[in-house]
């Protein structure tokens, strides 16, 4: 199983500081095909920064980032579309990739927003916009998906559906996913590997491993540790020690 799943992204001991103040440091992890790696941590703990480092957005970083694919889909945490820029959903879909109308329709359909295709981006609600962002990122059939709080502002029902979709994509398309999420339920039930950040890596490992870590409890409180037991029954697989998945 290990050899079949190619490593897509390898981040070694990376960090970044601005004006001599360290934002995040000493982060290492890798993302393989078909694997979901999640970054969790409080606000300002460097989750988005770490994702941006991994994507090569910053110029001066410490450590090393190696990317083994150029088919990358990114859902940034925040994206502002100025009113001065008239752009429809369909224009936005082909921002970095040429797509056929069919491909656009399929992707929008997957995230439940096909009806918004000809709408102007600036007229969308927050949740609709997130669905479009996700549709755009998956439409180019990426090998590596980086999702920075992809379901923010999406209604409860849609949230579950979108996380299921993300999970399905990682399995069907053999796509590696780097996910940032505040939703510990989802993280713990659908993730293969978790990194808990707070300016540095507090703890990391499989969800099972992380919830038992005392540093995780310190950061998120006792209630957060009970999350796993709540969602245990939803698992259709177990994780072995090294983070690989054993189907039941």
């Amino acid at each position, binding site marked *: 199983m290990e050899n079949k799943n190619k490593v897509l992204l390898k981040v070694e001991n990376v960090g970044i500081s601005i004006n001599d103040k360290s934002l995040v440091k000493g982060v290492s992890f890798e993302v393989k095909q078909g694997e979901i790696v999640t970054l969790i941590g409080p606000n300002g703990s460097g989750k988005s920064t770490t994702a941006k480092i991994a994507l090569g957005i910053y110029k001066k970083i410490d450590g090393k980032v190696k990317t083994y694919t150029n088919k*990358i889909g990114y859902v940034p945490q925040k994206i502002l579309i100025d009113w001065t820029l008239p752009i429809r959903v369909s224009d936005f879909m082909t921002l970095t990739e040429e797509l056929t109308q069919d491909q656009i329709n399929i992707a929008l359909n997957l995230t439940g927003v096909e009806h918004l295709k000809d709408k*102007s981006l600036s007229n969308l609600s927050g949740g609709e916009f997130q669905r479009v962002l996700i549709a755009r990122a998956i439409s180019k059939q990426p090998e590596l998906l980086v999702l920075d709080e992809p379901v923010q502002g999406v209604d409860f029902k849609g949230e579950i559906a979108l996380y299921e979709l993300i999970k399905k994509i990682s399995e069907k398309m053999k796509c590696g996913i780097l996910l940032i999420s505040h939703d510990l339920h989802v993280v713990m039930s659908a993730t293969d590997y978790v990194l808990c950040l707070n300016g540095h890596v507090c703890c990391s490992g499989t969800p099972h491993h992380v919830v038992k870590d005392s540093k995780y409890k310190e950061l998120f409180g006792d209630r957060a540790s009970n999350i796993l037991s709540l969602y245990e029954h939803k698992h259709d697989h177990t994780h072995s020690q090294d983070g690989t998945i054993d189907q039941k």
Partner: protein
Amino acid sequence: MLDDFFIRALLAGIGIALITGPIGCFVIWRRLSFFAGTLAHSALLGVTMALVFELNIALSVFLTSAVIAIFLLQLQSKTNLPNDALLGLLAHSSLAIGLVIIGFLTTIRFDVMGLLFGDILAVSQSDLLLIWGGGVFILIILKIIWKPLFASTINYDLAKAEGMKPDRYNAIFTILMAAIIAVSIKIVGLLLITGMLIIPAALARNMSNNPIQMAFLSTIGGLLSILIGLFSSLEFNTASGPSIITAALLLFLISLIKTKKFSELKK
């Protein structure tokens, strides 16, 4: 036919409108209107440099604008002053230095007004060649870099993450802006080139719902401004450059009525 000064003026104006239409959209989208103004101001310095070192004016203006653009990037990395302050600093100081140098050039008669407002009625055949040659070149480059430039305009991080190389295309775009100012300075002048970049694009925004349409309407708006401006300057014997910009403003005001109608329809 090209012997007639008015025909040459029309051809020059049409050439300028074809370039500034689509480029002006990017100027507005990227919030660069003040940057365009700064480059246009620095063009005065470029012209005086051309006189001092006996260089080709367009070349000298292009080089000065490019240097100012690079200098701006340097300043941005050295200080936390906001962009508009830095742009104002560069615009006015380069204009001032240009005027100071003109003061030293006592032997050369120099028409500052002509430089500020241009003289489209004095366009020569070689000017036409410069505008149309330079214009075709600029538009071909823009066509080639449209997709990555547009992606970088929407969101730097997204473009960078998905391999669109935004730094490279932002730099190319800056060079294109310097080139536009270089080919058009003599025709519309430095105060009016900014107007031609911004006003047609602004009126196009009021009437369009996608980027290609906006670039197209912006070009149409620029062409109409040139035609209306030139013919009315002939009719009323007014200065041609300012007449063109006044025509553009009138078209912009008309486009406002159009926008209002659209939003009423939505309700």
